[in-house]
């Protein structure tokens, strides 16, 4: 029995379960030369075009950028930067329809090309003399992410620390219509092989297996010729079957190994890279040419000239279609990607990104719309077609029932969403769509469960903390009480001031205790009303200010000042009313001192002045009512003193006047008494 490696060397191929044979329809585009697209008016560059996190923006609106200049930079390993595909001006950083099935808006950098196509300085690397780390950094900095579809950062895959037995280059391109990789292989086989050389230097595999479907004879011949000098590179022709280009399926085809569920190919010593990625790596390392363009197949029967084009990343789909003579039908479907796994676009301003390999604009007769969904007749054609050997009809049943446990038991997570099941279903059930929804639900549920767990932990931690604080406070109070008692016993004499203070304190405490829940609520409501008034006023003043604001942004600060003044006045007025209503002076005082103090801190002079006046007036009213003169006096004298320290002259004058008035009022009261 020869070893696996010997079998592979001997050219053995295996098979995977299921698969379908949709009509390939690649000849419309695969034999034509690759066209160059004219520069579009605008380029929309999503800041995140790969699996991972978006980079930090390194440019601002209005800046001129050079071709190949990085627009974002990586601050961790999960970031792949994006680059300016041509020289021009950044005219906006905004939200734009994303090249994603959801079409949800995403942050994009809008670049207006200036037509000069001026490069930034480039420093090609000599791969013989530099170490792996430098190459990996170069790959990351030049924005290379997997070009097969998922967009996994290449530097992570190529910088694997695990030993690698086989490097598989995926040139299968099994989806119908798409011939972008085919065209690339025909055009630049030597660059691809150079890219594979670099990947080999990084990964050091036993053998390189290049998988190509056997319906691409020219590409196969070109690659074989380019690989002829390298003895551990094997070009393997795999029979046409969808989805043999799936990562797991190609691994099974070429090595008869299976990636264990929930693991990565690297765990079984295999790394797979797309052939386009290999090309991009060569360009990035050898020419310092970042990933700023790619080959896109533009095809479908609504196009007069279906062909492969070199498109800059960020080119709107509309530009590609127009270039190829797009004649739209009613209710046209425009698909990004292939007919099996691609997604329809809601508008044509969606840009080409690093993972876009095909734009498909079929006629209604070419790819007819799905008919009405009928009942499953359990024919299990889907199970026969499933490359992951799942049982799609059971999964459908449980997806409809939202039975997530059963879905997990039937390994929904292993579904690669290739669409083979829905392709063969005689009842035209959109099986994959059901699975996607179920998968999203399961993910959401897992997220919720995790969050609930965290929330519970935090809740418990908080309760524990509160309990501990309570205990500590209790202990401290007891200690203090004991100490005080001791001190009292020791000194014997009583201090008049201290006495007065304690009297006030007890009184305040009494008042506070008297305050019932209703009062608190009423107060709270009042405050809210106040806040609403404030907001309404703010809105009103904002409206008034609008013209000026539009004219001069410098007016902004004065507008806010005005608003703040108005707010303070309003607050003070409300306070006054409150004061008039409540008999509880102590609390009012307390909140009085707190709030205006706050606003002063925020507001500039004018506000402070207004606030002080308002406060003083409020105080007067209060004073007129209250019987507790001592407290009022105390707080009165205290507060303006505070204000003076902060405020300049005007405030001081106003405060002094107010104080004097207040004094008079109190004196008058006292006299009356």
């Amino acid at each position, binding site marked *: 029995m020869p070893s696996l490696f010997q079998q592979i060397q001997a050219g053995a191929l295996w098979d995977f379960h299921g698969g379908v044979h949709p009509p390939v329809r690649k000849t419309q585009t695969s034999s034509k030369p690759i066209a160059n697209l004219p520069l579009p008016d605008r380029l929309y560059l999503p800041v995140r075009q790969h699996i991972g996190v978006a980079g930090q923006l390194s440019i601002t609106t209005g800046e001129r950028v050079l071709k190949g200049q990085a627009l974002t930079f990586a601050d961790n390993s999960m970031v792949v930067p994006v680059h300016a595909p041509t020289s021009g001006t950044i005219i906006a950083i905004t939200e734009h329809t994303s090249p994603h099935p959801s079409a*949800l808006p995403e942050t994009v950098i809008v670049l207006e090309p200036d037509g000069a196509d001026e490069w930034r300085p480039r420093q090609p690397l000599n791969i013989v003399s530099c170490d792996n780390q430098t190459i990996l950094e170069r790959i990351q900095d030049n924005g290379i992410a997997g070009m097969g579809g998922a967009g996994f950062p290449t530097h992570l895959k190529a910088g694997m620390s695990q030993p690698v037995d086989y490097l598989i280059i995926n040139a299968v391109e099994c989806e119908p219509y798409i011939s972008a990789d085919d065209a690339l292989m025909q055009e630049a086989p030597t660059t691809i092989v150079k890219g594979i050389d670099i990947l080999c230097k990084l990964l050091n595999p036993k053998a390189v297996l290049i998988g190509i479907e056997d319906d691409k004879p020219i590409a196969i011949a070109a690659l074989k010729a380019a690989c002829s000098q390298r003895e551990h590179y094997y070009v393997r022709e795999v029979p046409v079957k969808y989805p043999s280009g799936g990562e797991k399926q190609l691994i099974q085809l070429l090595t008869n190994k299976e990636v264990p569920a929930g693991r990565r190919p690297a765990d079984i010593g295999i790394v797979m890279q797309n052939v386009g990625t290999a090309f991009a790596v060569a360009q990035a390392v050898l020419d310092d040419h970042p990933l700023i363009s790619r080959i896109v197949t533009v095809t479908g029967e609504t196009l007069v000239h279906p062909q492969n084009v070199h498109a800059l990343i960020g080119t709107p789909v509309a530009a590609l279609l127009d270039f190829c003579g797009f004649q739209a039908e009613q209710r046209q479907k425009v698909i990004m990607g292939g007919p099996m796994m691609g997604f329809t676009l809601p508008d044509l301003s969606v840009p080409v990104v690093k993972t876009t390999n095909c734009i498909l604009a079929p006629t209604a007769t070419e790819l007819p719309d799905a008919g009405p969904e009928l009942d499953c007749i359990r024919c299990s054609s889907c199970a026969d077609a499933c490359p992951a050997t799942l049982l799609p009809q059971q999964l459908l049943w449980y997806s409809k029932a939202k039975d997530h446990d059963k879905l997990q038991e039937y390994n929904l997570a292993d579904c690669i969403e290739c669409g083979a099941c829905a392709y063969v279903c005689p009842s035209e059930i959109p099986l994959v769509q059901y699975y996607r929804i179920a998968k999203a639900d399961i993910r959401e549920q897992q997220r919720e469960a995790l969050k609930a767990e965290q929330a519970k932990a935090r809740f418990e931690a908080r309760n524990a903390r509160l309990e501990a604080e309570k205990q500590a406070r209790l202990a401290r109070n007891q200690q203090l009480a004991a100490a005080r008692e001791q001190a009292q016993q020791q000194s014997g004499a009583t201090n008049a001031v201290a006495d007065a203070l304690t009297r006030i304190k007890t009184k305040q405490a009494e008042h506070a205790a008297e305050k019932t829940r209703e009062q608190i609520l009423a107060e709270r409501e009042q405050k809210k009303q106040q806040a609403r008034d404030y*907001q309404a006023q703010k809105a009103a003043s904002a409206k008034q200010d609008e013209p000026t604001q539009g004219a001069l942004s410098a007016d902004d600060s004065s507008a806010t000042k005005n608003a703040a003044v108005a707010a303070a006045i309003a607050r003070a007025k409300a306070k006054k009313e409150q004061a008039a209503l409540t008999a509880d002076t102590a609390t009012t005082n307390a909140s009085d001192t707190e709030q205006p103090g706050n606003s002063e801190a925020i507001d500039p002079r004018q506000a402070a002045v207004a606030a002080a006046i308002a406060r003083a007036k409020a105080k007067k009213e209060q004073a007129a009512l209250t019987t507790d003169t001592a407290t009022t006096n105390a707080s009165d004298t205290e507060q303006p003193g505070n204000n003076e320290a902060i405020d300049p002259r005007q405030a001081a004058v106003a405060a002094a006047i107010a104080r004097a008035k207040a004094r008079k009022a109190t004196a008058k009261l006292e006299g009356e008494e």
Partner: protein
Amino acid sequence: MTLITALLALGVLALLFGALLGYSAIRFKVESDPLVEQIDDILPQTQCGQCGYPGCRPYAEAIANGDDINKCPPGGEATIKKLAELMGVEAKPLNAAQEPAVKRVAFIREDECIGCTKCIQACPVDAILGASKLMHTVIAEECTGCDLCVEPCPVDCIDMIPIPVTPERWKWDLQAIPVKLVE
């Protein structure tokens, strides 16, 4: 005579089986989570108190003691269904009239915040950051959307805003994609 034999035989058999069952009930007892733990695991842990209990665990205890299972608005129908399954009772519609259809988090309009710390005290999961007289802010990741901070705010500067849908969280609702007209 036969009657007595039969009765005796049956009686002995009954005793034997009873003893066997009793023994096995003790011997092979299935150790499982106490009921309260299981209920608590099902509850969404928002600690919102909308059920009338101070937090999820007290409500779990209440359910274990026979309270209704339909008092948890954040959990929604799904939670009720699971609770019904666990408790072996009929699933009832949600008690509270309105169920928050979308997940929300609290957001403090920071220029209006006066730094009163009232919301911090209200938050059951310590998801609000701030100090007295200083601006507060919500840690959105930790916020359970329980609404408890909204009411105590004296200046009404806390909004409950729905969590925006991102491509990662998107639920494949193709119907909801707006088709834009061009030209």
